[in-house]
Every structure is written in structure tokens, then in C-alpha cells.
């Protein structure tokens, strides 16, 4: 079954969301007899049929272990798997597919870098710099590293609007700064950080930079060569692909220098009890049988993006968030959390006097799926002095009509909870 987007004429000027929606079976779901409105895309996106079908066709037609079989199926599976590395490399414009390492997700990518490159570069008294809007997955691995090395984790503060000031960023870079890891696009505030400029600043001092692009690759074109970042991480499941797969991009020279992450099969060149020599990059970092099926289906997610009129899709997302912001601000008591001038297609908010969780539960009764709480960014909530927010996050397959349903449901929730 082909996704409709494939047969759609790319040159049509209107972005036809109705046609796009037909590619995503889940979007037709009824929740408690109401039309599902899925606004929890920043947690995980829905999947087009092409991705779902790829999973079954892999298992039905060419399930085999890869890189080791001499037979027909293994060759077919190996080809399909390796091809995704090339697709992923092109997707972020890596200079070679060898710079693409498959991991379980953004979290594993960051842990991998912290426990290999990080361990190599950071020593006692050194500093690792992050920002105040990191996801826990870009805090804890560095904290663990700093604890082990007796190094110091330093944090660039965020403003009331949820932005980073470059001057503050600059002033926190010292002679002891050995690594910088920053989120490209905040999952709780929606802020898009000036990462290119931040990398340029770090580059002047020769400090390697890692970019958490989990929320970024979904809503804009990310080019690792243009950014000139040393490492970059993202997750398949947030960009139409299956769970359990992610990408770590790393500059070739770093990947070659770094020690392996885990030991096992696939990552070795030869093993004896006296001495093991490691396989080449990227295999050095992919110990054991990989997540073959999900990687192959992830390739379909990238294909979907490639066939999509991305400019139109991203523009549509921008319009959605603009519309949602406008409608939300009309409601008495609503306060938008995160008012950065550069923002992605999500909106976090609170309602005066009301608990975010209560609101989220009511929206659920109306079939509207949002996320409530701290969104794995507790320091952001502490900074804003709130326990949590309600977050609605949009994807190109969402519509203004859905935003209307959400706004109506929200108004009802406020009325009910204020009784």
C-alpha cells in the first residue's frame, strides 16, 4: 500500500492535510466515542502506513540476522539495514554514512557520548556546560560523568521568556570547559535555540559540542555540516518511525578516537583471550544484533519526510502553533509558558488556579490527547516556579479544526474545575 503522499503532486501549492491524514491510520481512532485529537506529538509521533507495513514486510519476507549470514535472506536484510544508514546520513547531511551510529534513541546517544568521548576528555576540575532547558536525558548522563570525574556541571540560565542569552552562554565558557551539550529545540518550552551561533562560539575555544535534536529534526531541516556540531542525537519515534531506534551522528575524527561503548559481537574485528581488536566505525559502537526491523522501518519514516513537501508541512505546523497561541491567549487565566521569539510547533501553558493534570484528564474525556507535568524537564519548571504545564504539540497532520476542539474542551474544563 502506497502512502498517498507519494502519489501527491509535490508542486501543488496547497498543503492538503486531509490527504496526508489518510497515511496515518491511528488518526481515525475514536476515543470514548469522540474523534481522537492527538496533540502529544512531542512525546511520540504517529506512524504512516508505509512505516507500519515495512515492519510486517520485513518479518514476513526477509527476517534474518545481518552482516553475518551467507544466505539470500541475510543479504537482503543486510542491504535494507545498511541502506537506512545512508538515508539517515543524507537526512542530516552527514559527510559519510560511517558517521551514523544506530542507537535506541536520543537518550542512549547522549549516554554513549558521555561514557566514551566524555570520559576521554573530561577530567578532575573540568567543566561540562549544558543549558537550563535540557531534557533529563541531557542532564543525568553528564551529571554521572561529572560525579565520576569530579568535574563540574555548569548550566546556562534561561530567561523568563524561556530563552538563552548568548552573552551568558559566553560568560560560562571557561578554560576548564571540556564539553558542551545543548538542546536544539526545547520539548517543554518550545524554544528553538541559536545553536549554530553557540557552536561557532564554542568552536573559537575548540570545545566540542553535542546537539540534542530530538525535537528539531521533526520540524525543520537539520544539517550537521552547516551547524558544524561534533555530535547530534535524535529519535526515530518522534519523527514518524518506530520506537527503539535513534541516531547518533558524530564527526568521523571523534568516532575514530573514541573507545567502544559496549562489548560483544559485531563491534569486534578479532577476538582472542589475549587481545581483541575493534571493528571500524560505525560498527565499533553497535555491539550485538541490532534492532534490524525497526531500523529498516525507520528508513521508511525518512522516506516519508523525503517525499513530503517539507517546506509546506513545516509552514503548516508554524501556522498551527500561531493559531493555537492566539486562541489560548483569548482565554481568561491562561498563561503561556515559554514565549521565545524562535519557537517550534508546541505550546506549554498553565491556567491560573488550576492543576495541569486535572485539565489534561478532562481533555482526555473529550478525546484530546495532551501531555501534562514537567515533561522530563524539572529544572525548567523550577525556574518558572510552577509544578508543571499542559503541553499541546502539533505535527503537520494536525488541523485548525482540531485546535478548535481542543480550545472548546479546554474552556469546558476551566468552567467545570472553577465551579
Amino acid at each position, binding site marked *: 500500500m502506497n502512502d498517498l503522499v507519494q502519489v501527491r503532486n509535490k508542486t501543488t501549492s496547497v498543503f492538503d492535510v486531509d490527504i496526508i491524514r489518510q497515511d496515518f491510520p491511528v488518526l481515525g481512532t475514536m476515543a*470514548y*466515542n469522540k474523534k481522537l485529537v492527538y496533540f502529544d506529538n512531542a512525546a511520540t509521533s504517529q506512524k504512516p502506513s508505509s512505516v507500519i507495513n515495512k515492519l510486517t514486510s520485513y518479518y514476513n519476507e526477509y527476517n534474518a540476522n545481518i552482516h553475518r549470514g551467507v544466505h539470500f535472506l541475510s543479504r537482503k536484510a543486510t542491504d535494507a539495514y545498511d541502506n537506512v544508514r545512508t538515508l539517515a546520513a543524507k537526512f542530516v547531511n552527514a559527510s559519510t554514512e560511517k558517521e551514523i551510529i544506530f542507537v535506541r534513541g536520543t537518550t542512549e546517544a547522549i549516554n554513549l557520548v558521555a561514557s566514551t568521548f566524555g570520559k576521554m576528555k573530561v577530567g578532575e576540575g573540568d567543566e561540562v556546560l549544558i543549558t537550563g532547558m535540557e531534557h533529563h536525558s541531557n542532564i543525568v548522563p553528564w551529571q554521572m560523568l561529572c560525579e565520576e570525574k569530579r568535574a563540574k556541571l555548569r548550566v546556562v540560565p534561561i530567561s523568563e521568556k524561556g530563552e538563552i542569552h548568548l552573552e551568558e552562554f559566553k560568560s560560562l565558557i571557561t578554560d576548564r570547559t571540556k564539553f558542551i551539550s545543548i538542546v536544539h529545540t526545547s520539548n517543554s518550552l518550545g524554544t528553538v535555540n541559536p545553536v549554530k551561533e553557540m557552536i561557532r562560539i564554542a568552536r573559537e575555544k575548540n570545545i566540542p559540542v553535542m546537539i540534542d535534536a530530538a525535537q528539531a529534526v521533526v520540524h525543520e531541516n537539520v544539517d550537521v555540516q552547516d551547524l558544524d556540531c561534533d555530535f547530534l542525537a535524535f529519535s526515530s519515534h518522534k519523527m514518524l518511525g518506530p520506537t527503539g531506534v535513534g541516531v547518533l551522528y558524530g564527526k568521523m575524527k571523534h568516532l575514530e578516537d573514541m573507545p567502544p561503548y559496549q562489548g560483544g559481537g559485531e563491534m569486534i574485528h578479532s577476538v582472542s583471550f589475549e587481545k581483541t581488536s575493534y571493528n571500524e566505525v560505525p560498527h565499533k559502537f553497535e555491539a550485538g544484533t541490532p534492532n534490524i526491523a525497526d531500523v529498516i522501518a525507520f528508513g521508511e519514516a525518512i522516506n516519508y519526510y523525503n517525499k513530503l513537501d517539507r517546506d509546506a508541512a513545516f509552514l503548516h505546523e508554524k501556522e498551527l502553533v500561531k493559531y493555537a497561541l492566539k486562541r489560548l491567549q483569548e482565554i481568561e487565566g491562561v498563561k503561556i509558558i515559554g514565549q521565545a521569539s524562535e519557537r517550534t510547533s508546541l505550546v506549554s501553558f498553565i491556567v491560573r488556579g488550576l*492543576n*495541569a*493534570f*486535572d485539565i489534561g*484528564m*478532562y481533555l*482526555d*474525556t*473529550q478525546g484530546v490527547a495532551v501531555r*501534562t*507535568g*514537567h515533561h522530563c524537564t524539572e529544572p525548567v519548571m523550577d525556574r518558572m516556579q510552577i*509544578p*508543571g504545564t499542559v503541553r499541546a504539540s502539533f505535527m503537520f497532520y494536525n488541523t485548525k479544526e482540531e485546535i478548535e476542539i481542543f480550545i472548546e474542551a479546554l474552556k469546558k474544563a476551566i468552567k*467545570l*474545575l472553577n*465551579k
Partner: protein
Amino acid sequence: MVQSENMNGLATIENDIVEEFTLFDDWEQKYEYIIELGQKLPELNQVYKKDEYKIKGCQSSVWLNSYEENGRIFYEADSDSTFVKGEIAMLIRVLSGQKAEDIVNAELGFIDRIGLRQHLAMTRANGLAAMIKQMKLYALAFHAQKS
């Protein structure tokens, strides 16, 4: 509410709640009812709104005070979530004023029977599951002390 010694008051109240919930056909109505219960929950005295009484959850917190009177255990509680307060109201209705032993052994099957189990699972992060545990622990401690 006084329960006769040989009647399991706890189970009776659970049945009453289940019966009341049969009036509602969908999740929205159940939600509204629970919110109503939450809005009616008596206020907890400010002296108990302190950290030592607080059960911190991921999305909301619960404050719980427990005490014993004439061999029975009583609870009063509050939360920053009205929905959680509604759930507290039901738990208090079932457990407060019961004998320690009955509280310890309570299976609280009504949560399942009124179709709130899924939602309770979601609220694991909300201090409610921790609150049930805390209620039982208090009863257990009292029971152990007595025997």
C-alpha cells in the same frame, strides 16, 4: 458511620460506590463526578499541609493525616489536584473509621469495578498509589503495636 462488628463495612461501602457509578455511562461523566467529590472534600487543616505529611508525586501531591480513635483509624487528606481529591474522597469513605486489620487487608476492588484502574495507573505518578500505601502502613503500624 458506625459499623456493626460482624459486618464488613468496608466491602459494603465499596459496593455502594460501585452502585453509584453504574449511573454513569462514560468517562466524562465519571470524571465530572470525581471532580465534584473533590470539590466537596473537607479542607485539611493547614497544620497538616507541611512536608512531613506530604506524599510527593510527579504531577501533583497529596497531604495525609492519620489518627486513631477507639480502635479505629481515621484519615483526612488534601491534594493540589481536584481529581486526586475526588479519588481521596472515595478512599476516605471506604477506609476512614475502619479497624486497622480491615484496612490492612482491604483489596480496594472498587477501583477496578468502577473502571478507574487505568486512570489510577496513570495517576501512579500523582501520589495516590503512594497514599494508599501510606494509609495501609499507618494501619499496619497501629495493628502491630496493638497485638
